[in-house]
């Protein structure tokens, strides 16, 4: 097998990128999650006019946020290992979960505002 670098499960957080791309990407995910939590808190202001249905987007945002947060550690390890192996698997599931969450939140908002 033509592996150029040994698998290093004991030190998976080390990588060879002087541009610190895995860290920057991890921080970008964390910033996005923080923004998602902020939006989720804003939805609480909709409880007086719209009733308990306004809790639906809050619960959805929190679940997606927790799900992505759990996956972030694994993603960071994959990124750090990928920098040494010159290959990183694309984050299809994370992108799908986050993208769909924001789209569903927007749709819920549109339906709520349009229906008055």
């Amino acid at each position, binding site marked *: 097998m033509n592996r150029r670098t040994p698998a290093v499960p004991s030190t998976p957080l080390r990588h060879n990128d002087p541009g610190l791309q895995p860290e920057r990407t991890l921080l970008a995910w964390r910033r996005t999650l923080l923004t998602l939590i902020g939006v989720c808190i*804003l939805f609480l202001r*909709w409880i007086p006019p719209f009733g308990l249905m306004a809790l639906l987007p809050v619960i959805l945002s929190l679940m997606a946020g927790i799900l992505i947060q759990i996956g972030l550690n694994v993603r960071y390890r994959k990124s750090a290992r990928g920098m040494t192996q010159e290959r990183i698997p694309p984050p299809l599931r994370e992108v799908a979960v986050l*993208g769909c969450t924001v789209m569903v939140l927007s749709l819920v908002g549109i339906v709520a*505002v349009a229906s008055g």
Partner: protein
Amino acid sequence: MNSPEPGNVIPPANAPVTPPERDRLSASLLGGGCEPDPRFTLANERTFLAWIRTALAFLAGGIAVEAFTSDVFSPGLRRAVALSLLVLALLVSASACVRWLKVERAMRQRKPLPLPVLVPILSLGGGLVAAGLIVFLIYGAS
């Protein structure tokens, strides 16, 4: 000791391209081609996240307009502004996902990157909402 540590060996630039190992979902969505430089994958990921944060900002704006501006705008105008912002959030988030996928495919097939259709949408949408608000401030408040 100046010898490199085992986990930090930098492969040479002309390293042979190893065959891609993808799961079924990645293979069906990303098509053929070879794996791009991991830095490009991460850069595309961060660009996607930046667009999603933009969409979240629009979403927050829409929610805030609906929740906090009942004393400022008439009900019709408030609804129009909130809806515009929420529709922009939907468009930007959907386009961000599509663009991420298109860029991933283009990088794997060594093709030029697609143009961002989000930029004109965002400029036009943001400009329209701002123009609407200016008109309201000049004529609506009196």
